[in-house]
């Protein structure tokens, strides 16, 4: 038992979890048909449930899972796992139908109309009743948390935001607050709003499908699962006192100390490589970082527009293409920054504390 737990704890570091999740995600979107088949998904479900049940035997794990405010996260995970599986599976089935030249399930019924009362209303009513039952039972058996009165002099360690913001709080490890707390949420909202204006292809509207929309769906699922849900899970279940990382079976020890050796890009370049010391003027000092950042946002879109995404560029036109690339690059920059941190202890690419401007 202890050995398994120790092994799990050792396995769990942000980089391993993150990488493993990305690999799984890649396999899932690369082989959706196999991944959603019963032969694969049922054993995986069994494995997940068994792992969860095993986890519950551990006091610490159980304590964190059953913290009242964390219970919905666990519920959400299972709900979303199921519906992701369900949606992709439906899409795969429709894809197969379309390959065979048949219409999708939805299309077969799209011209049939049924009366709202009773057919839709009844579903809604039963669902409403079912939800009410779940809520009441949930409320009866799980008391809402109430800690001691607010006290500005004692900050709990760790202090955490409400769980649905914990992905952003987790990003604070890798980004300054203005990026993690302001810029990225803004981009998320803008990005979400922009979806219908970029993906205007009416094909694939109103029914589950996968193959036709593989790129779009994969991007969305990547954003949702890896950059949102996974970060919430890490932030909620695996971040303990001093925002240190803890394995699922590791006790949250307030004294745990880990080395923090982060350095800035300018330091790497001017001290480690060139050995000339940091320039006094900030603009000179940060020039490599600024150039790198600008390059990141300028060069790939230009190259891709000429090569791989030529057709997309032509379809979208320059403005839409630029917006899309901007959004995508910002999104990708998150894991890139995380890996840079893990690989090179890189703190900031551009660090201008004079204006609180750090990237």
């Amino acid at each position: 038992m202890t050995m398994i737990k120790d092994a799990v704890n050792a396995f769990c570091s942000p980089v391993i979890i993150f990488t493993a999740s990305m690999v799984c995600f890649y396999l899932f979107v690369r082989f959706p048909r196999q991944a959603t088949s019963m032969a694969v998904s049922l054993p995986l479900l069994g494995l997940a449930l068994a792992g969860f049940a095993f986890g519950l035997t551990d006091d610490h794990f159980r304590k964190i899972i059953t913290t009242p405010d964390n219970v919905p996260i666990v519920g959400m995970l299972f709900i979303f796992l199921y519906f992701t599986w369900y949606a992709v599976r439906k899409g795969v089935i429709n894809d197969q139908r379309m390959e065979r030249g048949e219409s999708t399930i939805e299309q077969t019924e799209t011209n049939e109309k049924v009366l709202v009362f009773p057919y839709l209303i009844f579903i809604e009513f039963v669902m409403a009743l079912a939800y009410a039952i779940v809520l009441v039972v949930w409320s009866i058996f799980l008391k809402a948390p109430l800690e001691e009165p607010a006290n500005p002099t004692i900050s709990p360690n760790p202090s955490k935001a409400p769980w649905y913001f914990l992905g952003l709080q987790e990003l604070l490890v890798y980004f300054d607050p203005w990026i993690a707390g302001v810029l990225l949420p803004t981009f998320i909202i803008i990005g979400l709003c922009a979806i219908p204006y970029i993906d205007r292809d009416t094909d694939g509207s109103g029914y589950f499908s996968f193959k036709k929309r593989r790129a779009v769906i994969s991007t969305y699922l990547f954003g949702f699962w890896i950059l949102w849900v996974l970060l919430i899970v890490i932030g909620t279940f695996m971040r303990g006192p001093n925002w240190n990382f803890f394995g699922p079976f590791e006790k949250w020890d307030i004294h745990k100390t880990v080395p923090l050796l982060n350095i800035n890009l300018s330091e790497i370049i001017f001290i480690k490589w060139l050995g000339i010391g940091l320039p006094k003027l900030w603009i000179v000092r940060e020039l490599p970082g600024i150039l790198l950042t600008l390059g990141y946002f300028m060069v790939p879109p230009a190259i891709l527009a000429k090569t791989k995404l030529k057709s997309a560029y032509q379809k979208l036109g320059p403005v839409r293409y630029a917006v899309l690339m901007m959004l995508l690059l910002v999104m990708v920059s998150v894991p890139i920054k995380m890996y840079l941190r893990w690989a090179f202890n890189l703190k900031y690419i551009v660090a201008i504390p004079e204006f609180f401007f750090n990237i």
Partner: protein
Amino acid sequence: MAKPNPSLYSVQKTFFWFAVTSVLLTASLAGIVYIDAKRDWKDYQKAFFKLKAEKATAELKQAASAVDKKELEKLRAEHSAARKTLESNSKSILDLNAKLTAAELEITKTKVVFQDLKQFEDSYRYYYEEYTAHHDPRAASYAAKLAEIKPRVQEAKIKLEKAEKGRDTVQAGLDALLRQEKEAQKKVDQLLDETTRIERKIEAVKPSFAKDLLNAPMLDFIAPTLEIQQVVLENLHDDYHFAKAQKVDRCTTCHMGIDQKGFEDAPQPFRTHPNLDLYLGSMSAHPIEKIGCTTCHGGNGHSVSFIDTAHTPRDEKQKAEWEKKYGWRDLEKWEAKMLPLQYTQAACAKCHTGTVEVPQADKLNLGRNLAVDLGCLNCHKVEGFEGLWKVGPDLTAVASKTDETWVSKWLQDPTRFRPSTKMPRIFHLENQAGADNAKLEDAAIVATAKYLHHHSAHPEVLRAPQGDAAMGEKLIKDLGCLGCHSAAGVTAGTHGPELSSLGSKVNADWLFTWLKDPKRHSATTRMPSLRLSDSEAADITAYLMSQRNEAFDSAAAPKADPKAVDDLILLNLQSKMRHEEAVAQLSKMAPDEKLLYLGERTIAHQGCYSCHDIRGFEQAKSIATELSDEGRKNLHQFDFGYVHDIPHTRQDWIRKKLEDPRVFDHGKVKGYYERLRMPHFGLSEVESEAITTFVLSLTQEEIALEAQDLLTTDEQRIERGRRLIQKLNCQGCHSFDGKDAILRSITEDPGAAPPVLHGQGSKVQEAWLHDFLQHPTTIRPWLKYRMPTFGLTDTETQDIVRYFALLDGRQTSYRGEVLQEVSPDRLAAGKELFEKLQCAKCHQITASSQAMGASFLAPDLTLTKHRLRSDWVIDWIKDPQAMQEGTMMPGFFPDMQSPLPDILGGDAQAQIEAIRDYLYRYDPAAAAESTAS
């Protein structure tokens, strides 16, 4: 495309799901009602009412058996006889009742007439007055109307009164008939008064259908019998950090019997609070309506659930019991938990501030006194405890007292030399274990001893003459040394050090000099001078020097390993300079220089100067944590390290720290100078619990002034005196102010013990007391104990004099006695009484007195007029035992009966006053002359 099918699914099937979900929802809604109705506190209240009913039933049984059966029977018989008479008269009663009804009717009728007319009259009068005032001509007509109606009103009134009288007559007749039966009934009721009262009580608490209905779910908002009980505390607040919320204690919701007598043996939560006269009772000092519960016990008064109120178990056993019984668990995130019962006294200090001791809080007082005595407060700053004397001896002239070897052996382990010492062990503790550390510790010890001797002054020391050790031992017992010290095989005072094995420590010349005048050696010492003669001092010196600790003598002295010294010096230097500079500096030091440097660093690191005067450290700041708000310090600020065998609570941390001060270093990797420094005091369980209570009591919680026990100016002055008295240890020898003297307890004959000082303030004159405290003289020749000279300053002396006066409710004036004019007859009577009662048999009054055995028995009465207050003398002669238990002075006027009926008419009071007057006017010179002539 298939033909459109207008139906999506079978509606009938959804009915099934409707049914299922509806039933489940109804069930879950019923669940809500159930959990609302099923609250723990309701069960407790039901159980309590049951208990109360049971108790009342038992009471009822007792009360019923106390009722005189025969008497009851007799009264009942009388009653039934009266009833019978009544029944036989039923016809006339019916008759009278009918008449009564008729009379009532008549009254009603006449009353209506009267009232109507009266209304008219009032109305006419109003108009009449109004019109007259405005000179309206209509006034005349109203005058006429008024005149017309007046007699009619009068007539109606008379009719009404007549009707009322008729009714009263009938009523009286009826009452007369019924009286006998009523009185008989009343007598029976009176006899059963007690049982009826208890029956009613039972009725109020016993379960019934009506009560069940009132308490039923959904109906219990109307008038339930099971209700939340609460006290709202006017002046007390819960600190919600941003605002203060009024304190509300709902504890009595479950602890229903807490302020009621009779539940002393009831199971919790119903048990009566101990000592209701002091706590909770409405007449007590801490009424529940004013003080509540959580003010002292802590916890969350708003809550009514066992866990969320933050009950804290006393020990592991209770914890296990609670876990089983109540499902108790620790509220990790709640700071203000209840204090476990053994530490409750810590809460007293919230309101009782500024006093040396808190009345009735023995544990807290013990802890506080220990914290003062052991020097805790020398190192730890605590608001309100500043400016205390240093508890350790002055080390500025230590070289003249003892040698370096002794000091270093002592520092290794003080208890090896003197098991009872208050000096804690500083070196060689668990976090410095291991051979390497031991070497470092020894090096530090030797260096410290070296430093102390090197920087010691060398005051002149007298030569000790040869003394008689046996005589010295007797003197130690006789002179009162034992009030402060344990010595000569007697365990007594703990104020000063135990004096056995002193021969292994000091040299005879120093000891002789010290005994002659301690202040000569150390100006700050608390040791007073006993005004010893040279031979007395020599005898005591001889005895004390003969007492040795052989095991300590033969123990090897620690050695300073040169490498260890170098290592430590390097560690010190490195904290100030670069490594290479440090090495260079070290290589420049001579060996002696090294030791002196290390000694200085060691003393600075360990903070020795907090308790001892040490040259070179006059301005040094104490090294320990401030404890002013320790009782509220956040739990996460306590570093438990790797100690897991104690509960992680504030009190357990403090206690563990006291018992084993270095334990929290356990398992940690730390440098020599980073380790915990608190020394080991070897406290007993009782002591560590008491000190823990004291430390928990240190909070800076703001309590409204109205709720505090504020001291008046006089009380503050008394406390100032108390502090001084504590410092001087007056109560080692004298019993007063609620404390019994140690010396008194080891003196067999109370008459030979130092005098009891209860009522000293009303006994002696202030000026005399002032002089006496500064320059003590012999008052009681028979006492061998000697009042020491403390070398008090004028302010200190005045503080003590005022303290004694205030204790007796008097203000100091230093005015002395003003004598009243007295007739010569009275003086003559006084003289006669003085002679007849043979006062001079014991009291010296002149050189030619007959007093026996050279004033062996009683004080010289010539002192009286300057020493005593005249009204005290009266009280004293009346009943000496009452004022000083065990005194040899007999009472001559038992129950104020004089043995001499022929003087002053046998009036005891007059006789006593005459004696007093005689004493205050007695002039020894004149008396000597008259005797001579």
